[in-house]
């Protein structure tokens, strides 16, 4: 193929196919370069200026997020954020979406999503310690969706299991809006020795740029622009090859990078993952951050295919590759070090002082542009926004459920795919490798101990897009607070947040309003509980045939447990223990699973969330756990008290005997800021003295696997085993 000339690109507007607008192209040619960009240069701008790399549509909104606290060592702008956890240790984490690749090739799309997020962690010098994921699909009714779910789950497990990192938490949910645009969000948490922290920068004249890892092929070219594009039926067929993961190589790469930084910190000045937009994105960002320039020689790049041109090499998204900036005197040491791991490592360029980004290929200078123009000169868009019509129309709507049979409603709800046990999925993930997992998937948060200390890290992924759809601001607050309750219920102190912001097309004013308001909600909640947002990613254009997904911010939260004696799970422990619900229950049925079950859709506004009350309840539970008053603790969420009671009883096949002032319908209300706890009877006085108000003692745990429930309306006796089967088997049955 002959490359089009700079003039042809301008005349035929080829840049439009690559995602650049006319005004962006004019800005590049008239203001920045003052000449026409050639083929390679146009390609570089098109990926670097895509939403995925530049956040040009979302920057304005993202600035609203708090990113400071006494623990923050590094925040947004690095591969991942870092929080101090004392003793010269820090925790590093980030979440990332891989929605579009997973829709096209579900196994590899999901697998490479996991691979990419792991690289973001070890590129900071941290040892990855755990993985989580948040998945959203269409309803499990047709073969196509089931296949998609199977493959995504297999891809996540395939990569994580092989590389040997425990997958300790996550969530899976199903709504119509994700049928053709599934969401695949993965999170990785790492542990860092504070002194080992490496910035992703390329600084210092004549220092060398080293390429390490898998060879470069033509895979995933324009993945970044593709991630910033909408799906339509016809496009689905035209997709070219997606990138394929190799967890075996990544394991070697991970071990090598962690070791070189730990043992030879003087060799390495900067290190970065080649993720979206591959070589150009990683090297341009490293140079720009350091205020340097770069010269690259592409002839040295290890190649898997023949006759690749500069454009293809720079934009390739081949997986399992890293870029290092090293001191020239250690060149042989570094190359030998990686050779011992049987990894390709070559010098591909060096740092300069002229702030130009220069690329040579086969003796020719194919790119010569200011490095900052790729990363800093991207236009920022302030999109118009308007409140969605549905919110105005349904503002006063209030769903009032009718419960004919408490028992039947209860059992049916346990079978709902969004509530039923996700063991069918998570048991295919190795949750125990590394022998540090204190709480496995299935409780409120996963917990990993830090070997050799009394400390542990609690982590969770949470999102409830139904709430965000009904009220983006309150829904955003709820997403954060539910994650925080999960951390608190596990015995932890919430310390920080990463997020994946999954939305539709930002050029639609209603979508932009959803993004803006939900980020404001997330920000207000994070500020309240002092959990800065230290990393994350934005995935826009999640639409299929012009219909957007629900606004779906995913919150990944990490908590610190200072003493593993505080680790708490949601399962009832012993017959005779008293059961309490902490927090008042109101009629919150808009957006609930009950509304979905009874009407087939969701509708209506959400009540404002009282952040002060929410924080008070979290603090009280933490104090109670600290004083060893708590036997089990469970966050109340989808399906309300009824579902929380059931889940707490299932693990150890116990039952309960309770009497409540709530109505039968209120057993399913999804009022926020509530916890279900069980305590030893002997701790009753002390517990009640601590909590003071806003609690109800419901009854006690029983040995028999029977649920005896007296509400304001009726008394029912439910067979615990039958309820457990409904909950445990529902997903496996649907997946058949």
């Amino acid at each position, binding site marked *: 193929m002959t490359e089009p000339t700079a003039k042809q690109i301008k005349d035929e507007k080829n840049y439009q196919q690559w995602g650049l607008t006319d005004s962006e192209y004019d800005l590049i040619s008239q203001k920045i370069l003052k000449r026409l960009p050639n083929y390679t240069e146009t390609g570089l701008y098109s990926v670097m200026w895509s939403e995925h790399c530049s956040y040009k549509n979302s920057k304005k909104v993202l600035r609203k997020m708090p990113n400071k606290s006494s623990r923050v060592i590094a925040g947004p702008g690095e591969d991942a954020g870092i929080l101090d956890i004392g003793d010269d240790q820090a925790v590093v984490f980030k979440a990332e979406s891989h929605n579009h690749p997973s829709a*096209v*090739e579900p196994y*590899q799309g999901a697998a490479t999503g996991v691979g990419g997020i792991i690289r973001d962690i070890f590129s900071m010098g941290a040892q990855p310690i755990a993985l989580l994921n948040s998945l959203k699909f269409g309803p499990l009714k047709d073969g196509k969706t089931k296949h998609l779910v199977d493959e995504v789950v297999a891809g996540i497990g395939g990569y994580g299991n092989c590389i040997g990192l425990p997958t300790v938490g996550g969530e899976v949910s199903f709504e119509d809006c994700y049928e053709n645009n599934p969401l695949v969000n993965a999170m990785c948490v790492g542990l860092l020795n504070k002194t080992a922290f490496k910035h992703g920068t390329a600084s210092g004249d004549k220092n060398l740029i080293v390429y390490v890892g*898998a060879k470069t*092929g*033509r*895979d995933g070219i324009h993945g970044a622009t593709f991630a910033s594009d909408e799906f339509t039926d016809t496009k689905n067929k035209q*997709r*070219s*090859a*997606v*990138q*394929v*993961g*190799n967890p*075996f*190589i990544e394991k070697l790469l991970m071990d090598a990078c962690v070791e070189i930084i730990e043992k030879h910190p003087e060799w390495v000045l900067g290190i970065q993952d080649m993720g979206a937009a591959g070589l150009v994105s990683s090297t341009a960002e490293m140079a720009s951050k350091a205020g340097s320039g770069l010269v690259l020689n592409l002839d040295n790049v290890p190649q*898997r*295919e023949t006759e690749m041109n500069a454009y293809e090499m720079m934009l390739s998204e*081949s*997986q399992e590759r890293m870029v290092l900036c090293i001191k020239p005197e250690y060149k042989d040491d570094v190359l030998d070090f990686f050779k011992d791991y*049987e990894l390709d490592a070559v010098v591909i360029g060096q740092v300069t002082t002229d702030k130009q980004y220069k690329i040579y290929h086969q003796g020719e200078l194919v790119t010569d542009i200011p490095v900052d123009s790729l990363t800093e000169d991207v236009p920022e868009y302030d999109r118009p926004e308007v409140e969605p019509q549905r919110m105005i129309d349904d503002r006063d709507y209030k769903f009032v459920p009718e419960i004919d049979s408490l028992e039947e409603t209860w059992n049916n709800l346990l079978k709902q795919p969004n509530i039923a046990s996700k063991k069918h999925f998570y048991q295919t993930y190795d949750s125990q490798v590394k022998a540090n997992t204190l709480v496995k998937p299935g409780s409120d948060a996963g917990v990993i101990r830090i070997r050799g200390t009394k400390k542990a890290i609690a982590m969770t992924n949470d999102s409830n897009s139904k709430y965000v759809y009904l009220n983006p601001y309150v829904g955003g607050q709820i997403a954060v607070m539910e994650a925080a309750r999960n951390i608190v219920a596990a015995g932890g102190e919430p310390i920080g947040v990463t997020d994946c912001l999954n939305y539709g097309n930002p050029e639609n004013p209603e979508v932009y309003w959803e993004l803006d308001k939900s980020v404001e909600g997330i920000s207000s909640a994070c500020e309240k509980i002092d959990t800065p947002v230290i990393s994350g990613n934005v995935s826009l254009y999640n639409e299929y045939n012009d219909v957007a997904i629900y606004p779906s911010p995913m919150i990944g939260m990490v908590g610190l447990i200072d003493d593993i004696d505080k680790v708490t799970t949601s399962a009832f422990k012993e017959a005779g223990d008293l059961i309490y619900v902490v927090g008042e229950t109101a009629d919150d049925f808009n957006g609930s699973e009950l509304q979905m079950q009874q009407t087939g859709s969701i509708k209506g506004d959400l009540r404002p969330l009282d952040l002060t009350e929410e924080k008070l309840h979290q603090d009280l539970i933490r104090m109670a756990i600290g004083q060893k008053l708590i036997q089990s603790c469970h966050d109340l969420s989808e399906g309300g008290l009824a579902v929380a009671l059931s889940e707490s009883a299932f693990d150890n096949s116990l039952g309960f005997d309770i009497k409540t002032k709530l109505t039968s319908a209120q057993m399913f209300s999804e009022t926020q800021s509530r916890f279900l706890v069980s305590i030893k009877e002997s701790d009753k006085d002390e517990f009640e003295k601590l909590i003071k108000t806003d609690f109800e003692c419901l009854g006690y745990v029983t040995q028999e696997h029977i649920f005896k429930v007296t509400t304001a309306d009726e008394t029912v006796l439910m067979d615990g085993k039958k309820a457990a089967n409904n909950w445990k088997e529902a997903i496996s049955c649907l997946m058949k």
Partner: protein
Amino acid sequence: MKLVKIYVTLKPSVLDAQGEAIKSAINTMGYEKISGVHMGKYFELNFDNDYPELEKDVDAICDNLLTNPNIETYRYEIMEEE
């Protein structure tokens, strides 16, 4: 009966991680002149002799189930069987 032998391989532009690992193992066994190994999948499908539009359906089965056209290609042979 007709026997259809279907060979599914990765497209040339897609990384064949397994093939690469097997190749280095073969090289370390001492067979150093082997420069490429590619791994694929093999299927045998049986059809009745009077099956109408056999090739069309085999293509459809390959396109929609046996392969992901984004990363894989296929070829097949149709043989007569007793």
